[in-house]
């Protein structure tokens, strides 16, 4: 089996046993890896209504056939489990070096079940798998944990997946961390790992990954690299992701009125230039670095030696766009050094920067409106007060005082607070918005409302890409579209989601596979997969089906767990007018959304309430999933 290691590692923390399961070749081509593999395992093995923080939940680390190779952007894997943030399909992707190392150790993925009686870590050295005590690592931060384990195992090349204090405390937006500053950020999977009493997984592999056609693989990767480097944002230009990071476009976003500001009150901010990639480059940036097999290197490396927000170290990287917006404009905080410190603390604690920033912005607005008082919080929480933000972040990770409430996520916190707080929570299904303003790019609203994991900025597409014609001719997306309109968008959203879902099932980094108005490297991506695996006749059409299958699996899990009602709605704020800027007065009304969603459901072959129909599921070879949705099967 080329490309693949051909084996999954199974670990039951309750019994302390581990075993190897062979990977079925036909199944591999249907689900590939990443999302497809993870979603299939959840539907097969997680019982309906299971407690995401209980022993029955599965925690899946899913690699794929390109991990281990020099395919650009292949240093990526998916973490999948039932989410404690949404109670639906939980998943997050991360880069770094772990995916490759696990392949060299001889596995395509790890499936963890059960709960360890006390805090442990898993050590995987090729065929040797040990469960070791981790009591001495309790409460330790990411880097400390990594260094301690590398010391114990006597090998500093050991790659480590871990959780910090937030995961141990089961903060509902705790991350799974790896390689010090890489995060499987969204949907609270760190809390699942914490609930399993699993502090870390240490991985060392000295084996190899073989290819069906090594020569052909090399050629197609060179062709792909050439295309990627020609893309203006992925090459050597002074405004590229390598030069300025993902926050390079902050000023432009503010100019277009789509930079989330003041808990989504407006999309434009006078201090945007103080937190942008350019500002970072001119102040605290040391340089940039890459994940495994990446020709771009969007990762920032920053240092803040001293001052009120000092102690920021290069090992922890630096803030990317989502972090800069969440701790910057969303909280009206123009202090870049404080953003760097908040980013580092999130990496130490293992916290999702998007949801953490969103929780703080939500609390700030609650304070402003008198919904949360100085007494309840313990101090004043004014917009832009960076010191108060750092203090509140620490309280969230430790679940102290009001931090304990905010650690539940904005949806649950708002419900507990009452007093109209839910009007200020900007989330879908319990997952806070990515830092992208859907009122100024309305196609995104469809993904936010319907995506399996909640308000997801990574599934569909971002409307400004359709400002020029021929954004994606391979699939017939040739016309220009107005970013403020929902007209024609459901079709494009669906296409983009299915292709993204295929990419997430390989998985590859989103930037190395930019879909709409992107690199135009779909052929090279097919070529890499074919040369790696030897799959004959792999076409874009089959890839779209693989993506659609994985998407429907994920959606089916969320629908199954929510009891059938998909909860596809947008938060109250989206029906309020943006205050000013280039997207001023834009809203998304319930009426607009409902019309778009009906069109979207129809195109997807889903029912009027958004449930994948039996016909659609059968067409995708998922008849057993249809049974689960009609309540006959419970997943086991």
């Amino acid at each position, binding site marked *: 089996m080329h490309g693949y290691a051909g084996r999954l590692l199974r670990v039951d923390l309750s019994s302390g046993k581990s075993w190897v399961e062979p990977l079925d070749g036909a199944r591999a081509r249907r689900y590939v890896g990443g999302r497809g593999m993870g979603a299939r395992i959840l539907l097969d093995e997680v019982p309906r209504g299971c407690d995401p923080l209980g022993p029955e939940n599965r925690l899946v680390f899913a690699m794929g056939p390109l991990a281990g190779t*020099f395919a650009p952007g292949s240093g990526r894997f998916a973490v999948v489990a039932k989410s404690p943030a949404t109670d639906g399909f939980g998943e997050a992707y991360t880069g770094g070096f772990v995916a490759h190392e696990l392949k*060299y150790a001889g596995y395509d993925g790890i499936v963890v079940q059960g709960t360890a009686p006390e805090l442990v870590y898993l050590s995987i050295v090729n065929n040797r798998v040990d469960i070791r005590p981790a009591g001495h690592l309790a409460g330790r931060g990411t880097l400390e944990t990594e260094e301690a384990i590398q010391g114990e195992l006597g090998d500093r090349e050991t790659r480590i997946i871990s959780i910090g204090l937030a995961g141990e405390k089961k903060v509902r937006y705790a991350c799974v961390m790896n390689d010090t500053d890489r995060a499987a950020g969204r949907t609270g999977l760190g809390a699942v790992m914490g609930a399993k009493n699993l502090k870390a997984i240490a991985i060392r592999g000295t084996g*190899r*990954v*073989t*290819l069906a056609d090594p020569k052909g693989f090399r050629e197609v990767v060179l062709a792909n690299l050439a295309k990627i480097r020609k893309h203006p944002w992925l090459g050597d230009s002074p405004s590229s992701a390598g030069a300025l990071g993902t926050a390079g476009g902050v000023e432009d976003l503010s100019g277009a009125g789509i930079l989330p500001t003041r808990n989504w009150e407006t999309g434009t901010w006078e201090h945007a230039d103080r937190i942008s990639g350019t500002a970072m480059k001119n102040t605290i940036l040391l340089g940039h*670095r890459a*994940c495994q097999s990446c020709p771009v*290197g969007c990762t920032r490396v920053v240092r803040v030696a001293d001052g009120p927000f000092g102690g920021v170290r*290069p090992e922890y990287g630096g803030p990317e766009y989502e972090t800069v917006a969440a701790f910057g404009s969303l909280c009206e905080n123009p202090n870049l050094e404080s953003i760097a410190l908040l980013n580092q603390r999130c990496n130490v604690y293992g916290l999702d920067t998007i949801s953490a920033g969103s929780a703080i912005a939500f609390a700030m607005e609650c304070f402003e409106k008198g919904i949360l008082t100085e007494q309840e919080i313990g101090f004043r929480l004014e917009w832009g007060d960076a010191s108060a933000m750092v203090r509140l972040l620490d309280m969230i990770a430790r679940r102290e005082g009001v931090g304990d409430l905010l650690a539940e996520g904005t949806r649950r916190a708002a419900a507990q607070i009452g007093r109209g707080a839910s009007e200020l929570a900007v989330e879908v299904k319990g997952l806070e918005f990515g830092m992208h303003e859907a009122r100024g790019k309305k196609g995104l609203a469809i993904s936010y409302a319907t995506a399996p994991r909640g308000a997801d900025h990574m599934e569909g597409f971002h409307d400004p890409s359709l400002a020029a014609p021929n954004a994606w001719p391979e699939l017939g997306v040739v016309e220009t579209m107005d970013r403020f309109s929902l007209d024609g968008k459901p079709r494009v959203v669906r296409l983009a989601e299915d292709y993204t879902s295929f990419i997430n099932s390989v998985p590859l980094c989103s930037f190395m596979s930019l879909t709409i108005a992107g690199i135009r490297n779909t052929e090279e991506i097919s070529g890499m997969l074919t040369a790696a695996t030897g799959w004959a006749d792999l076409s874009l059409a089959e890839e779209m089906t693989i993506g659609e299958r994985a998407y429907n699996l994920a959606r089916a899990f969320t629908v199954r767990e929510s009891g059938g009602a998909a909860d596809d709605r947008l938060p109250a704020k989206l029906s309020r007018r943006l205050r000013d800027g280039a997207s001023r007065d834009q809203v998304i009304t319930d009426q607009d959304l409902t019309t778009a969603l009906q069109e979207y459901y129809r195109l997807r072959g889903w029912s009027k309430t958004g449930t994948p129909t039996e016909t659609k599921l059968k067409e995708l070879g998922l008849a057993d999933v249809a049974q689960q949705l009609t309540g006959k099967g419970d997943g086991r």
Partner: protein
Amino acid sequence: MSRMIVVDPIKCTNCRMCELACSLVKTGAFAPSRSRIRVHVFAKEFKYIPLACFQCASAPCVKVCPAGALVQEDGLVRFVKEACIGCRMCMLGCPFGVIAFNSAEGLIAKCDTCDGDPECVKFCTPHALEFRESELADVPKGRDFARRVAEAAAGC
């Protein structure tokens, strides 16, 4: 004139493509543990240093090899696989630790610049690795330094 792989650590992003390119061309599969070039990571200092055989002009490995398996030839330290007895004396002799041992084959492995067409260089997108004439290898570094002098002088 001979050519050599010149490393500019400032440009290295730690993507490790060089290790994979090397292992693929030399072993037919991806296995960084079998690569002849290795990136050494200093996270605290934010430095990544790729190291491969420097093809020393007066190579200690050649001097200590008892089997004549390492020979100096056209500016390269060439490995004669057939002669290697797997004693690993060269690994002890090498001051840079750039000779690896492959226990499966019982042989050492070292960079041979892919016979003057190094694969690692082709996959180094940040251009931290370049293959240049030995005599000219330090020209860019010299020029960088000279530029700083020029800039300092202009600031006066």
